[in-house]
């Protein structure tokens, strides 16, 4: 990776909102953008700590999200609660396997992959790793883009619960697992948001500077 100067190394701050480059007031490290009044920092406030907090919260919620039922279907046969994994198994049929795979990916693999990816980014950033910067940044982007799609599952369940209300025959109600699942999605998104990707190459730049 080609090394470059960072704004921080020059004591400059980049506004995240309008992109204006500015210098903090003397003796200060933080300020507000003179153009758009956005808060300016060299790096996001306690990014690692916040990200860790959100990530741990998401990881904790991930357990009940998968163990508790997400949807209670009440039919003439009686109430039936299904967890996400049970739903995957239920959908798995010669014709329904693509749907089953989508649920498997969107609801189980992506959240877990996100948590693992963020954990990896955090650990590597904390340890000041200089390897695979390229890939780590790419990983961060993928996590950021893909993250919101996990919410699809929550929306689908919410829609189903709202639409399938054929009272005597069948009704669907969200079960506690769904709230945990939504919490996982929201917390991972917050974690991604609070992670400052510049930390990925800060260590590389600083090392290079030291080298130079």
């Amino acid at each position: 990776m080609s090394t470059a100067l960072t704004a921080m190394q020059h004591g400059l701050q980049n506004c995240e909102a309008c992109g204006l480059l500015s210098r903090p007031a003397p003796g200060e490290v933080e300020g507000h953008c003179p153009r758009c009044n956005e808060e300016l920092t060299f790096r996001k406030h306690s990014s690692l700590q916040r990200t860790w907090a959100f990530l741990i919260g998401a990881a904790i919620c991930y357990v009940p999200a998968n163990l508790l039922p997400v949807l209670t279907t009440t039919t003439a046969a009686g109430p039936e609660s299904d967890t996400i994994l049970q739903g995957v198994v239920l959908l798995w049929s010669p014709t329904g396997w693509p749907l089953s795979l989508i649920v498997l990916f969107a609801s189980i693999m992506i959240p877990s992959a996100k948590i693992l990816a963020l954990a990896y980014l955090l650990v590597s950033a904390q340890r000041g790793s200089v390897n695979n910067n390229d890939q780590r940044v790419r990983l961060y982007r993928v996590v950021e883009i893909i993250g919101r799609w996990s919410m699809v599952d929550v929306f689908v369940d919410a829609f189903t619960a709202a639409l399938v209300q054929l009272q005597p025959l069948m009704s669907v109600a969200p079960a506690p697992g769904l709230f945990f699942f939504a919490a996982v999605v929201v917390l991972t998104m917050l974690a991604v948001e609070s992670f400052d990707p510049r930390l990925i190459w800060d260590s590389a730049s600083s090392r290079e500077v030291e080298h130079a």
Partner: protein
Amino acid sequence: MPDSDRPLPHVPESRMLSKRRTRLSVVWIVPIVAAIIGVWVAVTRILGEGPQVKIVFASADGLEAGKTKIQCNGVEVGTITTVRLSDDHKKVLTTAQMAPKTESFLLDDTRFWVVRPRISGANVSGLGTLISGAYVAMDIGQSHQAKRDFVALDTPPVVTGDVPGRFFTLKTPDLGSLDTGTPIFYRRLQVGQVASYVLDKSGLSLDVKVFVTAPYHQYVTPNTRFWNASGIDVSLTANGLSVQTQSVLSVLIGGIAFETATSDPLLPAADENTVFTLFDNRAEAFKQPARNPQTYQVVFKQSVRGLAVGAPVEFRGISLGEVAEVNAQIDAQTFEFSAPVIINLDAQRLGVQVRGLAPGTDFNTIRKQLVDALIAHGVRAQLRTGSLLTGALYVAFDFFPDAPPTTVDWSQTPPQLPAVPGQLEAVEASAVGIIKKLNEVPYKQIGDDLRNAIVELDRTLVSARGTLDSGRGTLDNANKLIEPNSVLGAELGNTLQEVSQAARSVRVLADYLERHPEALIRGKTGEAR
């Protein structure tokens, strides 16, 4: 890439605001809260779990681990969590996670069984399981002893829980249309069900266990009769058509009825598991027991078609007994075919009173004399048609004074009583005689003679006409003679006048002679005129 040594253009300085920095981010509340909620959920889950029980099933048909529910009176109290085969592959071992606070239900005599759709005549049950799949039903026992290992029942119990009532055992050689759940009727009121049935050890009869619910069980006394009231009991006998049913339900699916004869003494209610006999029908159930049965045989030399075993034997309309057997025999000498009918007479059982019996003597001692006397007076057995509709026959004893005298053959076993041909047979015989005589009439000859006679008659008539014509001529002549102006008439008138005058003279003479009889001798004397 910009060089760090290059002079930068004018860069404005950022404004200063109050700074606030905390060492520990507030965001840490998020994982803490998540952890607290997670732990709380886990704790409530673990604490909320009820006891685990093991249930052994004969078959796992319809059982699904994690899906199949355990219900008690329709309330879900648990879920089957694992289903696996026993080590000998003969049974299915399951574990069930019961709902919290169900410990008090899991008692020594608590029963489990699989509810599947069952259509067993009397009741259609478990229809809901067609959609929902089978579930395990639980019936809470009465015991005080807790238990965790259960063996499920193969069939649902008929009587669940603490339904008050009593079990009785009925012995029957044939199950008929009975099944578990078949209703029991008392005066057409459904009062119980067949709980179970089992072939007894000998294999000759079945023990049907019935449950009679309270308060009707008190009507079952040791002398109560149970009978099979299955369907419609239609019997066409010599007594006519009789239809016996209990209810529409029993018509469709069968049933058992019981009743205590009003003539029987009132007894206290029967104990649990009292054994009764299950009769085939009501009549059989209430048949009086044999008191003094006597077997006789009557040999009929006519068709016994329509004579069934059990047909009544009557003496002038009073039932005396019934037909026990209808046999057939051939005489090797005469090749005569006849039907010996064995009859059981038990007059006393059928309510015939014996009166005027000298005290201390048994009726049996005078029986032979009685029978001999009756036969001597012309009592004979006869087959009669009891019902024109069915043609069913019965054996009737009646007086036939014209019957040839005979005696009872006491040497045979059973003793043979004399018989006369049946009514129909007698009528038939005389009819045949008439027809035979009619057949003997020489119709052809009569016809021929008749034709000849007619020809003869024709001729006669022709000559008769001639005769008549001449007759008319004669009459005409006669007419002419007696016409008022005819000569004959005038002469006749004159003659008659003459005769009249003559008669007058004779009368004068007679008068004179009466007055003067002497004139006959002296002649007419001159009277002094």
